[in-house]
């Protein structure tokens, strides 16, 4: 697997790029509204984090630590290390993402398929409506809207926080609907394209039942564009999850993602970038593998 071997190299390039770019932005992690008590104290703080060393030295030190698995102390949350914070928040974000992904494909694929099979039927309109919501309404509007309607007015679900399963419903829906719309659209297109192809006509001519034709021959091929779009979609999911985690006060990695930039928490930012890079690479790899496996054309 040449791709697998490439991942560490890509990670190294990403890490280096981010390390130096981040420091090009003015403002540092220790700047506060209140000036430091004295120059001595300020110097001591900087020395503690090796801030007084030349940049190359800091880079070397950082790289050395990362290879050993130590992502460093968080510069903003001084009682925690980056490994600490990621360890607490990654499982939460992963489960939210997995569930949203589940909603996206669990809702999007059947809906898209039905919309293609029964043109002009209720599924077609439902899919179109879903598309409208998912594509045209930003996540930071959809979330509070769902909270208002289902959390406060109807009282069916909790309005925020994470814990019991009821808390997961609204955030998952918010994130999932956004992507379900896109998945439904691609699925519908893929199905429409395949339904007219000679490949399907051959299968019909063989005398297979319509259901078998659809499930065995149409859907797998139609899934190809869906799967090939999961790569960029997953990247989007991560960005969208920031908004959802903010709106629903979920203790995931999303909060650190953006806030670590605003507080110039370089180590946390680097940790986040590395984590997301690994995640994106792995997920892209998985979707490529899935593609190869599902589509008989690519296999040959």
């Amino acid at each position, binding site marked *: 697997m040449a791709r697998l071997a490439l991942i560490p190299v*890509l990670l190294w390039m990403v890490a280096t790029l981010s390390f130096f770019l981040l420091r090009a932005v003015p403002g540092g992690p220790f700047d506060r509204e209140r000036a430091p008590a004295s120059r001595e104290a300020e110097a001591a703080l900087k020395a503690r984090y090796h801030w007084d060393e030349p940049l190359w030295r800091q880079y070397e030190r950082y790289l050395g630590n990362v290879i050993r698995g130590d992502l460093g102390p968080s510069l903003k949350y001084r009682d925690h290390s980056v490994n600490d914070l990621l360890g607490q928040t990654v499982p939460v974000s992963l489960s939210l993402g997995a569930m949203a992904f589940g909603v996206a494909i669990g809702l999007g694929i059947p809906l898209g398929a039905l919309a293609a099979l029964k043109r002009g039927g209720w599924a077609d309109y439902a899919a179109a409506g879903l598309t409208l919501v998912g594509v*045209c309404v930003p996540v930071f509007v959809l979330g509070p809207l769902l909270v208002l309607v289902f959390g406060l007015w109807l009282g069916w679900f909790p309005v925020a926080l994470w814990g019991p399963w009821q808390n997961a419903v609204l955030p998952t829906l918010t994130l999932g609907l956004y992507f379900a719309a896109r998945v439904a659209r691609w699925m519908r297109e893929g199905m429409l394209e395949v339904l007219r192809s000679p490949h399907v006509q051959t299968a019909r001519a063989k005398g297979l039942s319509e259901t078998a034709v659809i499930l065995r021959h149409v859907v797998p091929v139609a899934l190809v564009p869906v799967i090939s779009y999961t790569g960029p979609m997953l990247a989007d999911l991560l960005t969208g999850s920031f908004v959802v985690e903010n709106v629903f006060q979920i203790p995931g990695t999303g909060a650190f993602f953006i806030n670590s930039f605003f507080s110039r928490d370089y180590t946390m930012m680097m940790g986040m*970038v590395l984590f997301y890079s690994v995640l994106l690479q792995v997920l892209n790899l998985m979707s490529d593998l899935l593609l190869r496996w599902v589509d008989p054309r690519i296999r040959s």
Partner: protein
Amino acid sequence: MNTDPSSPGRLALRRFLRNHMAVSGVVFLLLIAAVSVLGPGVLATDPNQRSDSPFVPPGASHWMGTDIHGRDLFSRVLVGTRISLLVGAVGAGVSVLIGVTWGLVSGWRGGRTDAWMMRLVDVLYALPTVVWVMLTLTIFETRCVGWLSERWPASIPAFRLAAMMVSLGSVSWLTMARIVRAQVLSLRERPFILAAQSIGVPPVRLMLRHFLPNLAGVVIVYLTLTVPAVVLYESFLSFLGLGVRPPQASLGTLIADGASQLNPVRVRWWLLVFPAGLMALLLAALNGVGEGLRSAFEPRDGNGN
């Protein structure tokens, strides 16, 4: 101009015109563009004019109501639409420019150059785009604005907008590059390209005259589909506080401001409904047009490629 009735361009146009959704989308877009560009000039109200009547609901004097400063929301929405469309179009344009060039060069050169160029694309794919956008916008804000404020301060809002468009474009070109490269790789072996090469047509001319027209379909489709993505991304940035700067407004900033109206205490619905509704219609129209173009250029009668 090729007047052959069966040229791919004309065929596509005819297919497009048959698609009602797409056509109505185009009409809507042209209408909105016209109103937002000409409207503020025609109407007397200044979108930045404060008044002493904040939070007035929609009515005869203010068609869409007023905001906290007493500014007329209707004129702000029009101006905001203009800026959003501009940001979307230019941002998508930048992404097309970079993506097409990158894909062309990479696909044409092949071999090691191609491998390295695509590896770089992979690296950039792995970098979370939000970080990149925040970085570039902040660097611009801090380094360039200071330099500009001494020489030409009046241009700063324009430059800020340009910086935003460039940074948004610079995160959307990756997919375009990949697609263009794939197309170029398949076109490269076509007889008409090989023939042109053999008679000594220089590479640049080859690309402009022979590759580009064949790429046009794909490029146009993705351009139309990138615009809504860029507009949505801009609204996300506004939510973060990094969007278009006050007192300028875009639909994104208006919606981000209006999102706070989704509360159980006091809902000033017009502050959210109008900007969000307009943006939804805009995005729907853009998507409709994009889809229409895609099906126009890639027919599904089983015979097309």
